[in-house]
Structure formats: C-alpha cells, structure tokens
C-alpha cells in the first residue's frame, strides 16, 4: 500500500511536484500519465526514498519513507521492484548477473540455483537465455535491455510493490505487447501493488485499474477509466486529445482483453 499525502518536492528552487495526493491499494494497478517533464519519474523516486519530499508524507506500508533512517529504508526497498526509465542496468555485470542481482546480494542460494532461476526469468521476459546470459548489457538492443531490466526487478524474493517507469517506450509493438502482458500477469498472479508510468495511452488502458494524470507537477486527475473518458478538466482533455479515437473502449477490448499472449 502506497499513499502520497500533500507532497511537495523541488530540486533546489525548481519546484517539481505540488500538493500531490493519491493512494495505491494492495494489489491495485495504477497508471500514472502526463506530459514529459511533469514529474512522473520523480514520484517513483520519492516512493523509493531516493529523494526526500519537502512537505507531506510518502507512506509505504503505512510509514513515511522520507522520514526513515537508512536501515529501515533499505528494508522497505527490498520489497519494491523498480524498472528505471533508462533501464539502469549494471553495465559491468553480465546479463545473468544483472538479472540475478537481488539473489546474489541478499540470499545465500547456491550459484546453481540462482542460475536456474535467472534462466527461467529470462525465458519469462521473452529472452533466449542461452543467447544473452553471458553478454554485457551493451551488447543488447534497447528492447532487450528493457526486458532484462524488468526481469531484474521481478527476480527478487516476492516484491510487494512494482514500479515501472515507461516500460514500453521505444519497444516494437510485439515486444510492447509482451511487456504489457508480463506486467499484467505478474500483477494478477502475485498480487503486487503496481504503478506504471507511461506515455503510451493504449498500453495504459491495458494495464490499469485506476488512472492518475500529473500535469506540470500537479495532480490533474485520479479515477477510473470511465471517469477519465468523461473528465471535463481542460488539462486532462488537452493531454488526451490525440487519443480520443482510441478511447471508445472498443480499442481496449479488441486488442488486449482478447488475450494475445506471447
């Protein structure tokens, strides 16, 4: 359970977020949308405790992560899986070591067991384990790197919260569909709270239980798909205008609920 209460955040004197409040219940999936630079990634960084809010609370499991000591922060973070916007793979480690990072660092599992889990995770994210496991991240394509990043975030001992920062940006339609299905699958099977930041409205509709729109650091919308469709807020309408056609709901059913699985 994640709860932001009246959060203000600024880098120096550059105000990034103003009075942001929303909650993500246990095993709920919320999509955060908004124009570039509106502060979406910053929200995720706050939830991870990488930045500290100047005002308000960022509660993760009912405790304010911004006001914790480092040790408690570290304990909370182990329950959170994060896919960074640019992947942030460890470029001096192989793909296998990247994906197995959590297990290598935080568990005493034997190498063989870690290897098995890494392989099955690589399969899960649609990569050929034999082909990529010993490669360095630099030797992969952008889309493959993104999937490695997702695999790395998933392969921890049961994340309770998953944060995805634009997981489908820059992927081809096929890979996008795989990633979207992956996120959904994980969300349903393991009942984790999920926040997905994305610009891709079509993907958003396929993943979310609820929608949050951030506009220039302010919360412009928080509600269901129907409410979003009928929202009269000019900021929301402006942001959604290019996608009106696809918002009839047909799109949603036709392309995604049909269960196009990889």
């Amino acid at each position, binding site marked *: 359970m994640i709860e932001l209460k009246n959060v203000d955040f600024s880098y120096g004197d550059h105000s990034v977020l103003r009075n942001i409040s929303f909650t993500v219940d246990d095993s709920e999936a919320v999509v955060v949308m908004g124009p570039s630079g509106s502060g979406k990634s910053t929200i995720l*960084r706050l939830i991870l405790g990488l930045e500290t809010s100047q005002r308000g609370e960022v509660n993760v499991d009912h405790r304010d992560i911004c006001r914790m000591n480092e040790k408690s922060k570290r304990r909370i*973070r*182990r329950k959170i899986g994060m896919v*960074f916007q640019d992947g*942030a793979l*460890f470029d001096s480690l192989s793909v296998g070591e990247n994906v197995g990072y*959590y297990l290598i*660092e935080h568990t005493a599992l034997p190498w063989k067991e870690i290897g098995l889990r890494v392989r099955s995770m690589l399969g899960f994210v649609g990569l050929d384990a034999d082909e990529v496991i010993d490669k360095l991240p630099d030797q992969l394509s952008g889309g493959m790197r993104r999937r490695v990043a997702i695999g790395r975030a998933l392969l*921890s001992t049961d994340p309770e919260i998953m944060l995805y920062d634009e997981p489908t940006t820059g992927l081809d339609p096929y890979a996008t569909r795989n990633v979207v299905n992956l996120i959904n699958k994980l969300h349903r099977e393991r009942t984790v709270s999920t926040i997905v930041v994305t610009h891709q409205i079509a993907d958003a509709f396929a993943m979310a239980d609820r929608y949050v729109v951030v506009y220039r650091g302010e919360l412009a919308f928080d509600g269901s798909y129907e409410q979003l469709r009928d929202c009269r807020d000019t900021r929301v309408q402006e942001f959604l205008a290019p996608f009106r056609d696809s918002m009839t709901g047909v799109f949603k059913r036709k392309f995604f609920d049909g269960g196009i699985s990889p």
Partner: protein
Amino acid sequence: MAILSAFDNWLKHAAYESQRLFFFSARMVGALFSRRFYLRETMEQMYLIGVGSMVLIVLTGIFAGQGFALAFSMELMDFGAKNYLGRIMAISIIRELGPVLTGVMFAARVAAGITAEIGAMKSSNQLDAMVAFGIDPLKKLAVPRLIALIIMLPAMTVICDVIALFGGWVIATLVAHVTSTMYWSAVRERLVFGNIFVGLLKPVLFSFVIAFISCYKGFSSAGGTKGVGRATTNSVVLCSITILIGNFFITRVVFNWIKGYL
C-alpha cells in the same frame, strides 16, 4: 572588485566542498566498520589497483632512481664522497621520493579510474538502481576501493623503493664506479626504523587521501558526461596537490617523533 568577489565566491565554495568532503569521508570510515563486507569486490579492486599499476610503478622507480643517482653521484664525486651515494639514495627514496612518486602515480591512474567509474555509474542511474535493491553504494563501491588502496599503495611504494634503489645501483656501479658492496652497505646503513616508518606511514595516509577524494568526486559528480570528465580532472588534481602538500607536513611533523630512531 570583481576579482575580489570572485575570490570570495571561490573561497566559500572551497569551504563548502571541504566540509562535504569531510562528512563524506566520515561516512566512508563508518561504512568501513559495518558488518556487511564485500570480499569479492575488495579482491577485484586489489587486483585492478595493484597488478594494474605494476608496470607504471616499475618504470617510475627505475627511471627516477637512475636519474637521482646520476645527479647525486656527479655532485658527490666532486667532494670525493661518492661512497655515500647509497645513504643519500636510501634516505631520499624511502622517505620522500618513493611515497610521493607512487602517490602521485596512483592519483593519476587510480583516482581517475575510481572517479570516472563511479561518476559514470551515477550518471546512468546505476547508483540509484543499487540503492533501490537495498544496497549501500558506499559499502559496495567505496569501502572495497579504500581497503584495496590501504593495502596496495604501501605495497607498491615498497616495490617502487626497491626498484629505484636498484636503479641507483646500476648508475653507482656503471657510471660512478662505486662497488656493489659499498653501495648496498651504505643503503643498509640507512635502513633504520625511523626511515622505514615514515616511508610506510606516508603511503597509508595517501591511500586515505586518494580513496576519500576520488570516491567523493565520483559520488558527487553531476551533469552527465561532461560532469564526469570535470569530476575526474578535479579528482586527480586535488589528490596530487593534497599528496604533495601532505607529504611536506608529514615530513615536518613526523620528523620530530622519529629523530631518536634515525
């Protein structure tokens, strides 16, 4: 006036930076004594720092030793005192030249490497990813480098000393026509506790200087590739200067303690 205020600004900035460097160093020392210890990283750094610097140190030692011996032997011959060459070589190399040259070479090679690596990791969000996995980058990255430096810098200094003394021996026998026995017994005469103590204390202190400054500069770098470049340059300059100035003060202070052991 403009110059004055620029100087004022510079002074304030320097004071601010040294304060932050101080606190960072304190945290690094704190991390040094934490329970979590990364053996694999430490061994790897020892290998990279030690074995990687070997050729550089050997070359530095040989040519510095020979150059010194050449210059001194000319001067001593005028006084008919060339049998003292070994003593002068031993003192100047073990007490001053070895530690300073090795320190400055390490500042050039190792400090640059550390700052650039950590800076690049920071600019590609890898440090954040590490933190998100519940890992303290200070323990994982800074401490292994600090330990590796504390062990390898003195070791390399000893190697540099020995090689430089051999360089001096070559000149002594071939150019100055001092007999081998004469040279080495003169050297041995000066291998006393006081000299060796200073000669080993210096590299240990320099290893802290290099580790603190280079890690600090890496962790605090900002502004993308250019920022990493700037941080690296600063790191090398600051390390070298601090080593040279520090060397003087150590010589000055420690000399009083060790007078009795010379």
